[in-house]
């Protein structure tokens, strides 16, 4: 993997913008200050040593308990030069307010739907996005499900359910956090509702 990509970034922007870099298991990562998110992306796309012409993925991660809490992760790919890079930035307070970052749609048009999905799942707003609305969930849905404090089994039905003996129901004891606790030691922050 080309460590020199990270060096190019550091030379161009300096430590006030590129807050941290690391290379781990073959992936290069650069942590970017949120204010220069789009500038770094433009540089990576246009600079002839980088030429990252494809945005492979853009998603969010919720680091509950840390401030800033939400993280936007973008994976970039250069088809010609063959190198890849991950850029991340942290935004948002502990209740996920002020989670705003610049949109990358002017840089790569494919970022459109990826940013809509990140907004849908985490509530991160992308400034400059042409049409920021929910994509995977419906408009009537309240909340952002991939945040760690959204209970996984909390449904918001659009149609009232039928009643009657022919309606199959959950057998006891399988509420949301009952049954075998496979690996689930670290979900204290999740308040489960059955």
């Amino acid at each position: 993997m080309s460590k020199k990509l990270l060096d190019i970034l550091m030379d161009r922007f300096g430590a006030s913008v590129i807050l941290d870099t690391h290379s781990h298991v073959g992936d290069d990562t650069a942590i970017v200050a949120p204010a220069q998110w789009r500038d770094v992306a433009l540089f990576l796309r246009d600079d002839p040593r980088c030429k990252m012409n494809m945005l492979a993925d853009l998603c969010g991660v919720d680091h509950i308990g840390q401030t800033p809490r939400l993280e936007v992760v973008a994976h970039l790919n250069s088809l010609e030069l063959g190198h890849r890079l991950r850029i991340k930035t942290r935004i948002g307070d502990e209740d996920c307010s002020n989670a705003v970052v610049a949109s990358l749609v002017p840089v790569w048009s494919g970022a459109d739907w990826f940013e809509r999905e990140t907004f849908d799942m985490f509530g991160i707003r992308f400034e400059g996005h042409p049409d920021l609305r929910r994509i995977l969930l419906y408009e009537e849905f309240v909340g952002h499900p991939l945040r760690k404090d959204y209970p996984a089994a909390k449904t918001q039905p659009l149609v009232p359910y039928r009643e009657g003996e022919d309606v199959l129901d959950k057998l006891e004891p399988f509420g949301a956090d009952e049954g075998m606790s496979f690996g689930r030691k670290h979900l204290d922050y999740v308040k489960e509702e059955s």
Partner: protein
Amino acid sequence: MGEMTKPATHVIEAGPNGFATTKFNDLLGWARKYSLFQYPFVTACCAMEFMSVMSPRFDLARFGAEAPRFTPRQSDLLWVVGTVSQRQAPILKRVFEQMCDPKWVIAFGTCASSGGFYDNYATLAGIDKVVPVDIYIPGCPPRPEGVMDGLLLLQDKIQKGDRTPRIVKPRNDPAAALTQLRTARNG
């Protein structure tokens, strides 16, 4: 299989409405069950097995249930194939309401029957929460043989005019084998 019985002999009884009407109901049942027009409400992975069941090897056409009508107005059998999410539930309800009587619903697969293992915010835990279901075919996805069993069970129900929901059992029920083993061992 539990509920499906083949009529061995047909006893001609004069029902409360008379001989001619009973025979007519039989004729109607026979005509309906072998001419099901299906609306394949296909969503997810069960579609792969649905395609297999329509394909030459496990041909469903030989049971009269081939012709898909891609509008609910002209169909009488609603195949709900695959997971129905909360967002899709109003659409399923609307499609069901647009069908004319008599109509039947097959819940194809575990996700349609009970939500499957998607016990989360996005999935409808079984389509019987929004539409009444006649046949549940469990499996993730069910084997094409299971689907054919389900259709034959439905055809039997249509012949008898039975509207209670039924679940397709596996052909070799492991629970039955275990019970047999236990009783044999205990003498």
